[in-house]
């Protein structure tokens, strides 16, 4: 039987540790992805993810279900990301590798994907990652929550604490910057040569 988040939360509050672990298993990947896309560092994203669940665990008895559990979790994670960015006083960092190793890439290829397609996909992924670092924190957060986590405009507005129209404006401005930057990158000089 599959429990809903709210049922698992209720069981966790009642003392069932396995239910909380089920929540962790269910949400650790999205929370890690959110943290990674927001702060751009894998190790720190892992720490943020873990700290998110630890804080959620501590605060669980006070959770009254006024919001969805996932929204509550996102809020904790976003606050931690914001704290990290402000503490570090720097823009998100992209850890892009210097070259592309075809032997490593080959292992990641989809069965129907050629190596050329795979390289192109990886290049594009890095280009997007680089372009995202140029965005202000608010635009970046709005895009991450909308694009990768499928939140509604209202959910994002509630989460970040701003009007609905502001969320849409941030999305438009962020996507416009990305459009310009991705066009510039694809028109610019090619990256380092592939090595085998």
């Amino acid at each position, binding site marked *: 039987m599959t429990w809903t988040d709210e049922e698992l939360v209720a069981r966790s509050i009642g003392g069932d540790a396995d239910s909380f672990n089920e929540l962790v298993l269910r949400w650790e990947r999205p929370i890690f992805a959110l943290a990674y896309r927001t702060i751009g560092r894998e190790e720190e994203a892992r720490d943020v993810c*873990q700290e998110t669940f630890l804080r959620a665990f*501590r605060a669980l008895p006070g959770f009254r279900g006024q919001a969805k559990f996932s929204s509550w979790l996102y809020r904790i994670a976003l606050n931690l990301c914001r704290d990290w960015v402000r503490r570090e006083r720097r823009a998100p960092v992209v850890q892009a590798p210097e070259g592309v190793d075809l032997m490593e890439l080959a292992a990641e290829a989809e069965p129907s994907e050629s190596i050329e397609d795979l390289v192109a996909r990886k290049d*594009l992924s890095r280009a997007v990652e680089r372009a995202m670092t140029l965005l202000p924190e608010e635009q970046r957060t709005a*895009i991450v929550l909308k694009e990768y986590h499928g939140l509604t405009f209202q959910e994002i507005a509630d989460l970040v604490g701003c009007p609905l129209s502001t969320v849409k404006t941030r999305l438009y401005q962020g996507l416009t910057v990305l459009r310009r930057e991705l066009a510039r990158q694809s028109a610019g000089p090619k990256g380092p040569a592939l090595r085998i």
Partner: protein
Amino acid sequence: MTQIQCNLSRDREETLIAYLYNDIDPVIRGTFEEHLATCERCRSDLGALSRVRTQLAQWAPPEPGFVHAAAAGQSGAIRSSPAEHTPWWRDVPVWAQVAAALLFLGVSAGIANLEVRYDHNGLTVRTGWSRGSTAPPSDSVAQRAGAPGTPGTPGTPGTYVPWQSDLAALEQQLRAEMRAVPPAAVAVRPAANDSEILRRVRVLIGESERRQQNELALRVGETIAELNARRQAELRTIGRSLKETENKLGVEVMKQRASLNYLMNVSQRQ
């Protein structure tokens, strides 16, 4: 390049985004679609933003890896702080830790030329450095057996082997101890403060370490017994081989002596 004019209201950007993400009021959608049919600028913007979204879909974060202990199915295994990274050896399975410990034990025993003997005098552990000395039985390093055994050479067929019964008793005791640990004692429940969480995590770690130590002690005991038996068997084989060699050598010596006597006799006759 001239900017294409768009007669949409000042909410153009918001409407465009709402339409792009299909999160738009149906009435506004109808109006906007009518507008799109006539506005090249909005069509162009919409197409470009859709392409950006397609590109964004290619950005995949790395695999989170072992973010949380719960992923391994360890109930309630929450770390008390992100700064407290689990030591690497905690991630190694118990059997691998035991194997590594045994390997270390074996290598150490080899280096120290360790001799382990268990006879009627009890368990005696001696290194190669003290082999020349004649240590009395009271110098035995480890414990003596509780049950008295009939004196004899361990491993000799038909004689009493004292460590077998003791080992079986030890195994029974350790298994009983391990069974006696109640599973409920290690369950972690949401706690009100850090100290409570910390205390429970420590209990978990303590229980885990005790189980591992018991398991390790059991395996070490079994391995020592096995090594001892193997050593005795090899000593017997070597003894037999030496005797056979001695016999062969004796026969050869006798032959040589007979040949020498014969030669002496022949030379004296001449």
